[in-house]
C-alpha cells in the first residue's frame, strides 16, 4: 500500500531532525544538527540538492513549507533561538525574514492555513508561543503569548481553516484562527484569536509527561475536529470535538514501547503516522466504526497478541 518513490541521501553531517515535502510533492526540505537546512528537488524519483541554507548557528529542529500561493517559502526553527523564513527567487534561496524574539531554543514552526494569510506560529523552550504574520504593508509583525506552557513549549499546529459561510446564508462568518500547542507542562492547549488577542480556549490534560508533538487533523469539511498529541509518556491521544463547544474527548492509542516524537495526519484526516524514539513508525487509521487500528495489523490479518502495536506497526503496509 505504501511504495517507495525516492531515497534521498541528504548528506547531512549529523542527525536529521525533520524532513518535509512541499505542497506539490516536488521539493524536500531537511534539517539537521549540523545547523543546516537542505532543499532537494525530488521530481520523478530523482533528487538533486537545490540549496543548502546555512544561517542557523545551532541544530535546526523543524522546517515548514508555506502554501505555494505565497511562493516557495520555507520556515526553519533552531536551537539558536531563531526562526528563519527563506524564500526562493529565481532558483536562489535567501533569507526573507528572521524572527529572533525567543529566549531559548525554538522547537516548532507551523504555517497557518493559506486563507489566513502568510502567518506562522512558532514555539520555544522559553515557554512562549509567537504568531508571526506578514502584513499588508510588507512587513513582518508578531504577537507573543508569554508563558503559554511553563518550562517550555514543544509543538504547535494550526487548525484547518474553518470555512466562511456562503453568501446565500447571509454574512460570511468571521474566520476563527485557532491552533494547538503542547508543552513540558504535560498539557495540550488550544488557542483562539479574539479581538487581536490570543486566548486559551481549551486545556487538554491527559498526558503524564512532556507533550512532544501535536497535530490538528485536516477536517475534510466535517464538523468534527481531531487533534493528535504524543508524549514522553509513550502515549498517543487523539482528541475529538464535535464542532460545537470546547469539550474534547480523548481517545488513547495502545501505549507504545518508547517515547513518541511525531504525529502526522494524512490529508484526508483519518490516517495518522506515529513515530518515536524506538526508531519505528506506524500508521493508524480510523475505521468506519470509529476505532483506531494499526494499518499493517489490519493488512497482516493477524492479531498481534502480546506485542506492542508499534513493534509491528512499521512501514510495510
Amino acid at each position, binding site marked *: 500500500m505504501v511504495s517507495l518513490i525516492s531515497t534521498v541521501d541528504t548528506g547531512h553531517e549529523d542527525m536529521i531532525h525533520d524532513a518535509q515535502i512541499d505542497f506539490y510533492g516536488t521539493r524536500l526540505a531537511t534539517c539537521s544538527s549540523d545547523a543546516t537546512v537542505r532543499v532537494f528537488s525530488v521530481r520523478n524519483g530523482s533528487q538533486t540538492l537545490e540549496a543548502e541554507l546555512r544561517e542557523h548557528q545551532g541544530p535546526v529542529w523543524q522546517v515548514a513549507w508555506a502554501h505555494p500561493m505565497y511562493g516557495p517559502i520555507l520556515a526553519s526553527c533552531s536551537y539558536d533561538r531563531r526562526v528563519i523564513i527563506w524564500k526562493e527567487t529565481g532558483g536562489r534561496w535567501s533569507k526573507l525574514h528572521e524572527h529572533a524574539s525567543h529566549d531559548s531554543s525554538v522547537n516548532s514552526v507551523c504555517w497557518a492555513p493559506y486563507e489566513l494569510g502568510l502567518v506562522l506560529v512558532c514555539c520555544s523552550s522559553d515557554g512562549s508561543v509567537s504568531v508571526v504574520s506578514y502584513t499588508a504593508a510588507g512587513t513582518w509583525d508578531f504577537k507573543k503569548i508569554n508563558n503559554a506552557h511553563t518550562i517550555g513549549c514543544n509543538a504547535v499546529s494550526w487548525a484547518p481553516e474553518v470555512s466562511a459561510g456562503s453568501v*446565500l446564508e447571509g454574512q*460570511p462568518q468571521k474566520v476563527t484562527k485557532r491552533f494547538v500547542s503542547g508543552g513540558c507542562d504535560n498539557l495540550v492547549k488550544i488557542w483562539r484569536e479574539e479581538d487581536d488577542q490570543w486566548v486559551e480556549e481549551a486545556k487538554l490534560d491527559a498526558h503524564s509527561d512532556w507533550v512532544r508533538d501535536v497535530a490538528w487533523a485536516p477536517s475534510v469539511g466535517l464538523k468534527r475536529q481531531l487533534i493528535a498529541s504524543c508524549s514522553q509518556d509513550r502515549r498517543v491521544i487523539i482528541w475529538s470535538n464535535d464542532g460545537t463547544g470546547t469539550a474534547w474527548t480523548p481517545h488513547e492509542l495502545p501505549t507504545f514501547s518508547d517515547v513518541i516524537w511525531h504525529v502526522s495526519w494524512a*490529508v484526508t484526516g483519518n490516517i495518522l503516522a506515529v513515530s518515536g524514539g524506538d526508531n*519505528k*513508525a506506524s500508521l493508524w487509521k480510523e475505521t468506519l466504526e470509529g476505532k483506531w487500528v494499526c494499518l499493517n495489523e489490519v493488512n497482516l490479518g493477524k492479531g498481534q497478541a502480546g506485542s506492542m502495536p508499534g513493534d509491528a506497526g512499521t*512501514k510495510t503496509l
Partner: protein
Amino acid sequence: MASTGWAGDGDMLTVERKDIPSASCMAVSRDGQHALLASRRLLVLVDLQRPDHHLRALSWHSKYDAGSAAWSRAAAQGGADLAVTYNTAVEVFRCSGGDIRSTGKLQSHRRTITDLDWHWSEPLLATCSVDTNVHLWDVREPRRPVATMRSVESACQVKWNRISSQTLASSHEGDIRVWDRRKLSIPERYISAHTAKIHGLDWSPNSESQLATASQDMYVKFIDVTNPRNIASMPKAKDPVWRARYTPFGSGLVTVAVPQLRRGDNYCLCLWNTASLAAPQHTFAGHSDVVLEFDWRQPDPSQIRDDCEYELLTWSRDQTLRLWPLKADLLQACGHELAHGVSGLDTDHAASPTTDGMETSCIELTSQEQSAADSGPGSGPVSPPVSPQRPAPPRIWRAISEGPPASLEQEFLMINKNIDNVRIEKMSAEERCCTVSVVCGSVSACLRVTFPLSYPSQQPEFRYLEGTRLSAADRQHVKKAWELTAEQHVKRNRSCLEPCLRNLAASLQRLMERQEETAPSLYPAPSTTLFPSANLYGSFKDVNVAFPRTSGARFCGNGMLVVFACPAYMKRLSSRGEGVTPRSLSALDAYLINYAQGASYALAGARLAASPMLFPSLSRSPTGADGPLYGKEAVRLGTSSLGRRPKAYGEERARPRHPRTHTNIVLCYDASRLMPLNRELAERYLLGGQDFSGMCSANASLAASVGRKDLEKVWNLIGLVGDPGLVGSNADPDAGRPWAQHPFGRRLVESVISHYLKMRDVQTVAMLCCLLGTRAQQPSSSVRQQAVAQLDSGSPGESPYHTVHPTETRRHPTLEGLGVNVSRQNRSNSWSDVLDESRLAAPEPGAIEQRFQHDNNRRLLDPARQAEFDRYKRIYADILYRWQLTNHRAQVLKYVSTVPVAHCGLEVRSECSRCGRTFAGSECPLCRRCTIVCVICHVSVKGMSSFCLVCGHGGHLLHMLQWFRDQLLCPTGCGCRCAESLQQ
C-alpha cells in the same frame, strides 16, 4: 618507514593494573629490575622480571596525586633511592630487596612541583615548581634546599645534563634556562625556543650542549645551547608533543604526542632516528589512552630474550603497563652499534626496518577473574578498597596465548559481519572461499577470496569479480593494500579475513572521498569531528529543551510519507532495553558518550561522522515491495551490532536482503494508496458538458478502469437519479411532488454523500456536490448586469467566467420559474438582492414563497446545506492544487457558491468594435454581439479563449493550443512570435 600495529605483534608485554586507580606516574629503577607506580594512595613496585608475580605495594595517603617520580641514578646515597612528588612536597623513599620505606620529605616549594630530576652521579635532586623556583636538594639534608634558582615564570621541567655534572636546564613556558650549578643567581643561557609551553625537555646523552624539547606548539626542537640560534626542528606533528626523549642507545629519540582534548586514538609513541627525521622508525601503538610515562630498561643479560638489549616500558592512563622489546634491527635503525656484533651494519636494512625481526611468541596478559579470586582474601574487585595495614594483594595476570582460530569454518563463524559498506555474499568453508562486495558511493568492488589449504600460514588470494567499479590503478592499489594487511597477519599465523575486509572498506572509502574531492562535490566532505552535535549543545537551559527527535514519519504534500531514521548509534542504545529515550536535551551528551564506549570497535579507524545508519530498506526487496521486514530488521539490527555473537551464516542468507548502511537518508513514500483519493480519476473525471448521463457513464467506466467498482455503481446511479429531465420536471408546484423528494432523489444522494464522507473520500463527495448542486455565480456588478439582462430577455445568460457550462442551471431557477419581468434596477449587487427585487415585483408574496420553497424542494441537494457542500468542493480543490491539476481545480471551484476572493490585479477585457465599450467577457452588453472572433475558425468565441498579449490575436483555446503545438508565429500572419512572447 613507519610501521604501526606493533601492538599484539612480537613480544610486547601488557599488564593491566586496574588495582592502582589513578597511578599517575612511573619510574624505572636504575638496574631495570623494578618499576614504581605511584598513586595518591599506593606505591606499587612491579618486578619487571616477573610481571605476573605478586607485586609489592606500600599504602600511602596523600591528598594529592603523585606528580612525578624518579629513581636515583647514582647508587643509593644518603639512604634515598626514590623520589615522588606530591603537590608541594617531595617524598623520598628507600628501596631495598623489593621493599619500600619512606625516609624523608623535602618541602620548600610553595606551589605544585612539576618535575624532579636526579643528578647523574651525585645524590642531588633538582625540583621545579609552578612557584617559579628550581630547588636543588641534597637528600642527606632534607630540611632545606641546598640551592635555589629563581625565575619569573613557572617552571615545567628540569633536567640535569648527562655529561656535564655542573649544568642543568629548566623550562619556563616556551623558554629554556640553562643553569650552571656554581653560579645560580642568573641563568647561564636564556633560550626562547617555542611559541607555546614546553612539555618535555631532555639532554642528549651524546653531546654536552644538545637539548631536545617538546612543546604544545606541536614541534620538537633540537637546541644547541652554546649556539641558541642553531635550532633544528622536527616536522610539525599533528598534536601537541608531550615528551621527546633521547634513547639511551644510538641517536634515537622517542616522542609522545597527546591528542588535543584526548580525541582520537592516536596514543602512540614514535621512535625516531635524529639523523633522519622524515619519518619515525617505529610507532608503538597499543595504548588506548594517554601515555603518562615511559622509560628504558636494559634487561638482565641472563634474562634477555631474543637478543633484546633494550626494552621500552610505558605506563598509560588506560592502566596498562607495556613492555616493548626493541630488536636489533630497530636499534640499528636508531644508530645503535650492537655490542655483541651481529653481521656488519646493513645500511639499507637499517634505513628501512621491517617488523621481520619481531615475530616471536606473543605474551598478552589479560585479566582473569578466577585467578584473582584464588589469590587470597582481599583480592577481586577492580578497585579494591585499600586498607592501610594490609595493602590489597595485586591481581594476578596470566598469560593467554591468542592462537589462530582452529579452522576456516570457525573463522567464518566468528567474523564480525557488521563492517561498514561491506556485504558478505557467500561464504563456504568447504570450498574455502567467500564472495564479498564493498560499495562505497560510486566505487564498488566485488571479489572472491580463496583460502589455500595451508591458510592461515599462507595468504588468501583474491580476484575481482564483475560489478567492480574501480580504475585499473585503483584495483592495483586496493590489491596491494589487501596483500599487505594479509601478509602482516599471516606472518603471525593469524586469521586475516576480517582485518583485510576492514582494510578494503577503508581503502574504498578513501578512494570515494578522493573522487568526491576531485569531482565537483554535491556535498561538502563531512567533518571529521567525532560528534559534531556535541559541540553545539550545552547551554544550561538544555534541561528544558526536548531531546532531539531523530526519527520521524511525516505526511506531506499530497499523500507522500517522508520517513527518516536516527543514526545507528542512537538506535543501538534505545534498542538495548535501557528504558525509554531521555526527554531532555541535556541527556544527549551522556548518550553520545555512552555510545562511544559501547561501540569502541567502530571507533577504530572509522570516521564517526559518517557512522552507518542502519536503515532498513523497505520496499526494495526483490519481490517488489511489501515484505514485512521493517520491524524485524529494526530489532535485529539494533541488537546484532551490540557485539553479540553474529548469527550463523545460514541466517544471514535467509534474509532476502542485506540492510544497506546509509548516512542520513530520507525516504519518500507514496502513501496515496492508503487514501481514497485517486489522482488518475481526478485527472480524467468529466465535469460539465451537455450530456449529463453520458458524463456519468464515462465517469463510471473510468472508475471501473481504476478498480473502483463501488464508484462505478455510484456514477451509474447518479446518471439515473440526476437526469436533468427528471430533476427539471414538475417545475410548477401544482404539477406534483418534485423528483427530488422521491426516496431515490435527495435522500439517496445525501446518503451516498454521507457514506463517502465517512470514508473520507472527499473526491467523490465533491464531485457529487458539483454535479448535483448549483453553479457558482459571482456577485459582481457584471454578473448583476448579466443577470438583469438575462431576466430581461429570458435568454441564457453569460457565465462570469470565460467558459460556458451548458448543463448547469444557468438561469436562476427561481427567477426563471417565476418568469416575472424585473425592472432594470442597478442597485443590487448580489443574488439575494436580486431575489428581493423579484419579490417586490411579484404580484403575490405568498405564491412566491411557495414557489421558492418548491424550487428548493426540486433540488437534489438541500440548499440549506450549501455551505457544507461548498466546503467539500474547496477541500477537493485544494487537493487538486496539491496535485498541480490547476485546471481541474478551477473547474471545481466554479461550483462553489461563494467565490473566495474577488479578483484584483490584471484582467483581460475586451473592447467592442462598434460602440467602443470595454467589458469582461465576449459579448458586448450593449450591442449584444460577440466581439471576439477566433482567428482560426472565424467564429465568435463564447467559451474559453486565449490571446497573445503582444499582438492581441487569439481565439478558441483549443484552436490556439493546437496551433501553437508546432507553430511559433501568430496564425494571422502578422509576424508576431506569439509563442515566444508568451514565455517572456
